[in-house]
């Protein structure tokens, strides 16, 4: 599948590539961090307490930098925060805001890195929460200065649980978002290739139609013109010229119809849904088809793929009626909604079935791929197409996780 190269479903979507929008979002996040956490930290340090304010400034800048590179280099951001955490704890400096940056970076590691980055994130989470709980135990006043080592260990172990839970949560949320994005990307790829296949199919059908109309009509025109040139009888020549004019006129009408179809398939078609039935019917009426639409069973609620297939089948059936049917007779369309959907189209055929048929095969295929069924056939001079999409079905290509949305 060549189309997959644009979006690699195995790579966490959005990772690595930095477009202007994500960069701006991160810049805002960094600015907010700096304003709300970094500056107060520096100011706190500048007060005549015992921390050198320069160290606080460096830590603040490093923290902001880590937030800025968290998408492209999640592991680097992780390493930077590990270092900052160590500075905080080992120097016992008042650098609490670092822990907020740790949460952001852990989330990023879950979201934008692969297995090694995520494992590193869990390692950091373990180390950071142990350090934090040890620090709180010893300097936060939980253990009295002269407490036994076993008491310190016990308290550290208890205090370790909340930060570990918090940090793990950050990684797991990032991971979950990455998985969702990946599924979404795979869905987009599948949809794009499906659309491309549909377009190919349509183009092939148009090429066939073009050949049928243009090549056959021109072959007749040439044969008749050559025949007339050689015919001795003036009456035969006249009849030939009449045939030529008639054939050319008919072909021109067909070419116009094809061009109309081409325009429709070129125009972005946002209403490839049974919700757009009225517009479709109007369009067909404008093209000269007497469509009688009858609805029953309430509004149609089909999964999206079935909805598109149902709409395309209806469109194809009506187009066939326009091209091959008797336009003097009405075309009856019955639309049964409710849990599933049934489309029933019948139109009066012209005496000669002609070269119809390839479109019908496409309709069968479309219905089958979308999990429905289609019957078509001739019934006493009427051409009938009936497509049924059962309720509660699932698109066969959709991933199980996508079932609810498909």
């Amino acid at each position, binding site marked *: 599948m060549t189309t997959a190269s644009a979006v690699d479903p195995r790579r966490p979507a959005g990772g690595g590539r930095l477009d202007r929008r994500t960069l701006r979002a991160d810049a805002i996040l960094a600015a907010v961090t700096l304003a709300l956490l970094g500056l107060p930290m520096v100011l706190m340090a500048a007060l005549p307490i015992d921390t050198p304010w320069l160290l606080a400034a460096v830590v603040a800048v490093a923290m902001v930098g880590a937030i800025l590179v968290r998408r492209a280099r999640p592991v680097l951001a992780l390493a930077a925060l590990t270092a900052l955490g160590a500075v905080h704890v080992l120097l016992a400096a008042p650098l609490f805001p670092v822990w907020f940056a740790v949460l952001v970076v852990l989330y990023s590691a879950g979201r934008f890195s692969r297995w090694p980055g995520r494992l590193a994130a869990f390692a950091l989470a373990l180390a950071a929460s142990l350090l934090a709980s040890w620090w709180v135990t010893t300097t936060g006043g939980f253990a009295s200065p002269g407490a036994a080592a076993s008491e310190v260990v016990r308290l550290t172990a208890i205090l370790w649980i909340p930060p570990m839970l918090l940090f793990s949560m950050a990684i797991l949320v990032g991971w979950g978002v990455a998985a969702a994005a990946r599924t979404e990307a795979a869905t987009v790829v599948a949809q794009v290739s499906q659309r491309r296949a549909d377009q190919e199919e349509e183009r092939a059908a148009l090429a066939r139609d073009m050949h049928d109309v243009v090549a056959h009509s021109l*072959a*007749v025109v040439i044969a008749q013109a*050559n025949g007339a040139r*050689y015919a*001795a009888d003036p009456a*035969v020549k006249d009849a030939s010229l009449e045939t030529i004019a008639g054939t050319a006129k008919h072909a021109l009408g067909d070419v116009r119809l094809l061009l109309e179809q081409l325009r429709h398939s070129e125009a972005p078609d946002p209403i490839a849904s049974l919700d757009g039935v009225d517009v479709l019917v109007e369009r067909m009426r404008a093209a000269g088809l007497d469509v009688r639409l009858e609805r029953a069973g309430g509004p149609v609620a089909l999964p999206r793929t079935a909805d598109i297939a149902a709409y395309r089948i209806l469109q194809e059936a009506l187009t066939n009626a326009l091209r091959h049917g008797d336009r003097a007779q009405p075309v009856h369309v019955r639309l049964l909604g409710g849990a599933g959907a049934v489309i029933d189209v019948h139109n009066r055929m012209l005496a000669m079935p002609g070269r119809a048929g390839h479109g019908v095969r496409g309709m069968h295929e479309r219905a089958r791929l979308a999990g429905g069924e289609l019957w078509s056939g001739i019934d006493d001079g009427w051409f009938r197409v009936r497509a049924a999409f059962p309720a509660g079905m699932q698109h066969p290509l959709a991933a199980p996780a996508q079932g609810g949305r498909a």
Partner: protein
Amino acid sequence: MIRVLIVDDQALFRSGIRMLVESQPDLVCVGEAADGAQAVRLADEQQPDVILMDVRMPVLDGISATDRIVRARPGARVVVLTTFDLDEAAARAIRAGASGFILKDAEPELVLAAIRTVHAGNEVVAASATRELFKAFGRQRQAAPAAFAGLTERERQIFSLAAKGLSNTEIARTEFVSEATVKTHISRILAKLGLRDRVQLVVFAYEHGLAGEAA
């Protein structure tokens, strides 16, 4: 009189060709068929000399119809009518026994000449177009079969000229022999190689790399 049968699923195309055929004193149209099955039946009833055969038709296509007609009556000559000059179906029809192919939009003079040429059997219709066709859709080239070694030196010379699409008259002029001699050689060559007519000879030469690559 050359008896001609016209086979095409478009009535108006048939009537145009029919006018052309009927305008000629030496040609007569003995029938029209709208599909391959009708063509097979009419070929049996009317014993036409030349059949102008469309390829894509309902009921029975032109390839199968050609196959059945030449099998039933080896003397019948089929000319395939195609829309494109590189149509794989035309190549298959020639394999099935057609004597040549012409485009549906060919000049009327060419259509008439093709009818007379395949009937006379002394020349191939559009030899270079036939080679192009088999260049596009031919099989993998093979070594010449043992039968080819059975040709005499003289026969081989005539074989390669006929493979280039030269008529009997042209071969006679090139080789300083009489046309009757050429005709005798050609029929002996066809018999030795088990080929039914000259177009088969062109295809045989092409597919076995005997066509003379300059052509």
